[in-house]
Every structure is written in structure tokens, then in C-alpha cells.
């Protein structure tokens, strides 16, 4: 077992983890934050996206030990109490989801995209979400959600 320190959604944790445990396993199983999803476990779908030190990462292919000392935001850390983050609000209003399994990852990737670019073009949005697979929506409503979120953030 290895000892690591993580800050997740602003809260500090000291954890004992197996050396081969992924960050995803630690988030879901040890911290009980099941909003982060596992779609493939192989870095191919983005369902497990979390924000690590400002970057969107696939937590299924990040070893927990690699995340030692890092700042992590999961989907549970986005809203402030009952108040949704503008990206969450936009996905809700524009219908940027169906089954919702890709949604936490999609929203976090969108947040990172918009943190770096408040005026994304259609091309920027498509590129920014390329790592997040969605089987249900055909992405159209997701693109609309991202645009609406950008507008909310600019206001």
C-alpha cells in the first residue's frame, strides 16, 4: 500500500492505496464519489473525466499514486450547494444529455475548455470534446449546451 494525499473538491484526504489502483477507483470506491463514471477503463471514452490541476484527465488511466499532491475536481464539486455551475445549467436547459452516463465527463471537459477559451468556435468545441464519447445524443444538443454555457460565463 502507498500513502497519498489528494485534494478533491476542496477537501483534503490522506489515503492508503494499492500501487496499481487508478485514480478512478480511489474516487469511486474509497471516496464514494460515484458521479465519475467508468465506461471503458482504458482511456477511450472520457466518462471518467475529472479535472486535475486544471486539466481534464481520464481518471481510469491515471494511477492514484500519480495524483499524489494534486487538486482534483469531480462532478460533485462543481455546483455550489444547490446552485448549479453555468455549464451544468446550460446542459440542463439545452437538453445536452439523454442517459446521462457521459454527462459528468462531458461537463467537466466543457468547463476546462471554457476556462481556457470563453469564445470557442464550433471547431474548438468539437475538438475540445473529442475525447468524450456519447452514444445517445449525436452531440448536437451537447454542442448547443456548450455554446449556451459560454454565453452564460461571458455574461
Amino acid at each position, binding site marked *: 500500500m502507498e500513502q497519498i494525499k489528494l485534494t478533491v473538491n476542496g477537501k483534503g484526504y490522506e489515503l492508503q492505496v494499492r500501487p496499481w489502483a487508478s485514480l478512478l477507483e480511489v474516487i*469511486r470506491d474509497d471516496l464514494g*464519489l*460515484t*458521479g*465519475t*463514471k*467508468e*465506461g*471503458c*477503463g*482504458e482511456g*477511450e*471514452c472520457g*466518462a471518467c473525466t475529472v479535472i486535475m490541476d486544471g486539466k481534464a484527465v481520464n481518471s481510469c488511466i491515471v494511477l492514484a499514486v500519480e495524483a499524489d499532491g494534486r487538486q482534483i475536481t*469531480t*462532478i*460533485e464539486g*462543481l*455546483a455550489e450547494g444547490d446552485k*448549479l455551475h453555468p455549464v*451544468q*445549467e446550460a*446542459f*440542463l*436547459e*439545452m*437538453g445536452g*444529455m*439523454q*442517459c*446521462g*452516463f*457521459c*454527462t*459528468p465527463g462531458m*461537463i467537466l471537459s466543457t468547463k476546462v475548455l471554457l476556462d481556457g477559451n470563453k469564445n470557442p468556435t464550433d471547431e474548438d*468545441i*468539437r*475538438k475540445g*470534446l*473529442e475525447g*468524450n*464519447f*456519447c*452514444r*445517445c*445524443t*449525436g*452531440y*448536437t*444538443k*451537447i*454542442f448547443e449546451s456548450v455554446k449556451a454555457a459560454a454565453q452564460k460565463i461571458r455574461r
Partner: protein
Amino acid sequence: MKEYTVIGQRVPRIDGRQKVMGQAKYAADYSLPGMLFCKVARLPVAHAKILNVDTSKAERLPGVKAVVTAKDFNGWTWGFMANTRDEPPLAMDKVRYYMEAVAAVAAIDEDAAEEACDLIKVDYEELPSVFDPEDAIREGAPVVHDYRPNNVSVEYHWNFGDVEKSFAESYLVREDRFRTSRATKGYLEPPASLAWYDPAGYITVWAAKQSPYFHYRHLAACFGLPLSKIRVIQPFIGGGFGGTKNDSVAGDFCAVMLSKMTGKPVKFVYTQEEELTISKRRHSMIVYNKMGMSKDGLITAIQSRVIADGGGYTAVSPLTMYLTGCCTPLPYKLPNYKYDCYRAFTNNPICAAMRGHGVTHTRFACEIQMEMMAEELGIDPVEIRMQNAIDNPKPGEIYRTINDMTLKTCGIKEAIQTLVRDPLWAQKDKAPKQDGSVSYGVGMSATSYLGGARQLGHQSCAAIVRICEDGTVNLITGATDCGQGSDTVLAMIAAEELGVRYQDIDFKMVDSAYTPVDPGSYGSRVTVLAGQAVQTAAADAKKQLLDILGREWKVSPEEIEIRNAEVYHRSNPSRRIPFDKLAKIACYSGSGAVIIGKGYSGYGIEPLGFENGRGNAGTSFSFTAQTTRAGVDMETGHVTISDFVIAHDCGRPLNPIGAESQNEGGAVQGMGQAIYEDFIMDRGKTLNPTFLDYKMPRSTDVPDIKVIDIITDDPDGPFGAKEASEGSHVSAPPSVVAAIHDATGIWFKEQPVTAEKIVAALKEKGKWPGKQ
């Protein structure tokens, strides 16, 4: 027409807040104290006789609590029809496809369970195997199931009119061989369940099922328990699209059995690779299609001979093969029709239902063949469609197809005309046709899909509308939302009928201990049939409320209206109270005044005529016309789809956001199937069982999509609605392939139309611009 207050509004999904906050719990998100983990052991051989399964080493591994093998299930099998129950939870005497389950382990963690699976030793004798469906049904092929010695798992032979005579009299007759791909549903959430076998004889599962009541019956039958003791609690479902999540999988039965053996809760979650290797996929079908036409392009007859690769077991395929045949007389008038189908058992993974079930195969063949013939006759793609398309029946009239399907509404002509006016089609000749090595083309399709499908046996949906004393409402149904948005639509229907606001409705997800039995989420039936049940239940509750208020106000209940959560006297609207007040009056109006409305859907349609193909496959039919713009790189064969315009007749979109999103998602899934989705097989082994190697559309691949509603207000649907989730999945492939034809001048008859196939065809035709 009455103005709706809720129907037609762009409301947010009823579960949207939970989903965007990460609070929506899916099967894998549930856990219980002391829970064990289950992994399934599989045999990496496509066809073999099992001689012995030795689990002793696995059982001795520290952390392992129990191992289950086939014998624990005492020979129990399940399947769609009484005479096709051929699938065991774990392989008994032999395995029939690569990686079929042979045992399962429960251990204190996943690592131990996985290691134990590797320690299970199976002695087996490999058997001759068969992978091609046409080979499989030839004399002397290796036999997959002894009860079907010719490997024909399902066959139908239907005949309407006189095709032979009609072909003889036709001006033009064409025969082609089409093939559809080995596509998969591709949902993001792999199968999972948390199971608890209470030693008192109860089973509780939190299972990822889009049709939880199939599973409920399977568990009762498998474990010999009464249905009253089976509790399937439906979590949020991470996508369905038919097949696996309608059915049960090895892990489902094994987790319950292991829980029974250990006295602990047991959870399994398949890996995505496991899912893509073994889970039920779409049939790949070979369609030998023959079509006759008059000189001016009227279709005179169609004859389809279909050979489907069924894989190792029957599953739901009697229905698949029915749907593959029955909808060919839509959306064009068809006077003569013959259908012969053979579903072959092979040693490939099991094939079953998937979105666009059955219809997608034959509609693709007919649509492309019709265009090929129109081309030969010099008739334009719009004209050929318009002159064959079925007219919208006048109110009160019915259109009857040659196989006795009946339509009360049909928006196909309006849909085609709408597309003709849309800039993508109208200005297609003005748009550039060539840019560097890329050729552009625009293609069209016109298709239909059924709503309100029926399987065998139980068919009706039920709903309960419970009024709370503060004016809020619990809506209880047996319907499952696997993403399509039905919970939202059902809540909208309840709100509209009752006269309250959408946000006053609370939707209860399936818990088979409390919710009414429901057939499930398949065949685009939920909005149509559960919707009808909800509407009836809401009307019942409303009647009870108004009866009580009528007594209070000393007026007849018919004189009172409820709208927008306001209750008022029709002829004296100043006499009004808010709905919550009415709820309180009613709930307190006497001892036991509990306001509960109940409703059922009608049985919809007669049981399917499997033997003769006559009768309705659904209660109503949606119609879709679609245009696609594609760019084909003539050097590399790479296809880029830039635009879809979809004109969809779903009767009336109840929740426009949901209906659009279904159309968009369905069409994109259809696009994947048309141009790249395909399992690459090697002697029964799936070579590309990952999201990386089994390519599905990503954000960078999808076109701009415009959805246009064609409103026909079907008299049988709740508030005029018909299906809205599968139509565009059927319309996309032919429209994409027609666009590729427009760009390249070549008709492709085999899905997926990959870059390799395009380059090969261009070379063959001498059209490839590269160096040979």
C-alpha cells in the same frame, strides 16, 4: 384544437438536475455492506464440448467465497418463446460462441475474483464450427443446436399477391445482394447489477435493465420463487438501444446465485471489452432483393430472401425476423410481396434486437435498389419517392398495406416535400461538387418505423397517479427511461391531462415490489402505450378531484376546469382556487379519501402473425425522410458527413427537445453503421472489442443536424404522438449511402461503406485518381 399548457414545451428533463450534478446513480454505483464482487469465467473457444470444469484451485484462492458452475442452475434455460428457450446462464454441455460463460466467482474484491477465474480449468473437446450464415444452413454444416439440425433457428415464408406474375409483367426487374454490418448498441454503461438473495426467499437486484420486467420473470423462473418475492429496482440506465439490456446476462444469474451461496450481496460489472466481445449485437443480414417496376417507376413487386447470422442462441430473434419482413410495404405502396427468411445458428456471438430492429436491413436494401432502378429509368430520386409514397389517410380513413398493417396517419409525402424545399436539397446543384480530391454529394431516403410494438404475452402498460395533499403528484408506472426521455414525456402527459404544472409531477422509477408490471422499453412503445396509461390514470384522478369539488361547489363536475394548477368554474372563471387547495379539500374530504388515479393502455395490437406475416407490428407508424450531404475523398476513400436534415413524422412531438435529440442520436448511430461500425471477426472471435478499434462517431465526426417536425396527430397516440426514437436510425444509412453515390457515382450495397471499400470500387471502375 385545444391549446396545450405542457405538451410541446421545451421543458428540461425530469432527471436532468440529478444527471448534471453527478447524483444520478447507475447500477455500478450501488453498494451494500459486506458486498462481494463477481467475475465471470469464459472459454476462449467458439465451439466445444465441455468435458469437465475444475474449480478447486479457484475455490482455494484467498478471498474467494464461492464459485458457481452450470450444474448449480439444474439445467434451467431461457428464451423468447417456449420452444426457443435454448440459452443457459452458464454453458452446460458445450459452448457455442467464443467467450461463452462457463463459471463465475464471488470474492472480496475484483482482483481476487479475476485471479480466481484464471484458475478455473475447463477440459474441452473442440468441435467443428461454422461462422458464415450461408454455410451454416447448407447440408452437412456443423450443428450448433441439436434441436435445429439444419441450423435454421427461425424461418418464415410469407406471400402476398403474386410476385411471379408481377415480375413477368414488370418493365424493369432487378436483383441485388445487400449486406448489413455487425453493429453493436455501443452504450457507454456496461451491464451491471447488485444482487441480494435474502435467505428468507427474496431476491432484490439493482440491475441495468431497460426492460426490468423481463429480468423479473427470468429471476423468478430461474430460482423457483414467486414473482411477489422478486424485487428489481431500476437504477438510472446508461443507454439501452435494445438487445442486452432488454434481456438477462450470465452475470445477472450468477450474482444472484453467488449471493444465495454466500449470504452476502454480490455485484458484477462487465468490462466494456467483455461487453463488446460477447454481448448481444445486431444481426448481420444478407438480403437478396428483387424489385419490379413499371416504365414510369411504380413499384410492382418486391421479393426479399434474407439470411441472418444469428450466432449461438435464439434470444429475441423470432421477433427480429418478423420485423425484418413485415415493414417492407412501408412507406411505399406495394401490391405484391414475398418474404423468405432464414436465421442461421452459427458459432458467432448472439445476435438480437437493436434500435431500428429488423426494419433497418430490408429498408436499406429496398431504398437503395429503388434508387438504382430509378436511375436506370431516368427518374429523379424525389419523383420516384413521391409517386410511390403512401398518402396521408383522410381523418377517419385507414390505409391498409398488402400484409394488413393499418395506418391512420402518414406524413411521408409531406416529409419528402419539406426536404425538397430545404436548402440542403434545393441548392444542392449550386453547392460545390468538387474541392481538391473531395467529391461532394447529397442523398435522400424515406423510411418508416413502428411504435407500440408487441411481443408475446403480457402487453399492457399501467400507471398510477397519486395526488398528495399539497397538490404535488406521484406518477408511478412500470416504464423505464434508458436515456430516451420517457420519464419526462410521461410526466408531461400527466401534468397536461391533470391540469397541473410539469414541475408538480414526481416520477417514480421501476421497483417491481411497488410499480405495475410493464412489458419494457423496446419497439418504441413507451410514449405510445405507457403514455396512454398515464393519460388515462391522470384523467381518472382528475375525475375524482372534480367530483369532490363539484359536491363542494354544488355544480356539476363537467363545469369545472383545471389548467396550469388553477381550478375554476368554466362559465364563472372568477370562481377559482389553486390546485393545491383542491388537493387538500379532496384528500381531507372524508375518511379514506385517497386520490389515486389508475389507468391502463389498450392491448394495442393483436399478437403477431409469425406464420403468415399479416397484421400490425405496431399501434402506429412514424415516417422519416432524410437528406445527407457527404464529402468523399476520392484518393483515400475517407467520408465526411457534413449535414443531415431529418423530417420526421412522430405524430406530434410531446417534448420537442427529447424528440429532436432522439432523431439526432438515432441518425448519428445510423451514420456510424453506414460508414464504419463493424465487428471484425476471426473464426468467431471479435478482433476489435474496444472503443478504440470499434469506431463509433465522436464529436469531430458528426454532421450539423436539422430536425423538422411533420405534425400528423395520430388519433391512437397520447396527444397525437407516435414513435420518435428509431425512425432516424433507419433513415440514416440509405440516405448516407445515396449521398456517397451522388459523390462517387457508385452504389454500395454492403454496410459499412468503409474507405477501403470505396477505394476498391473506385479502382475497379477506373475512377481512382491515385497511382495504381
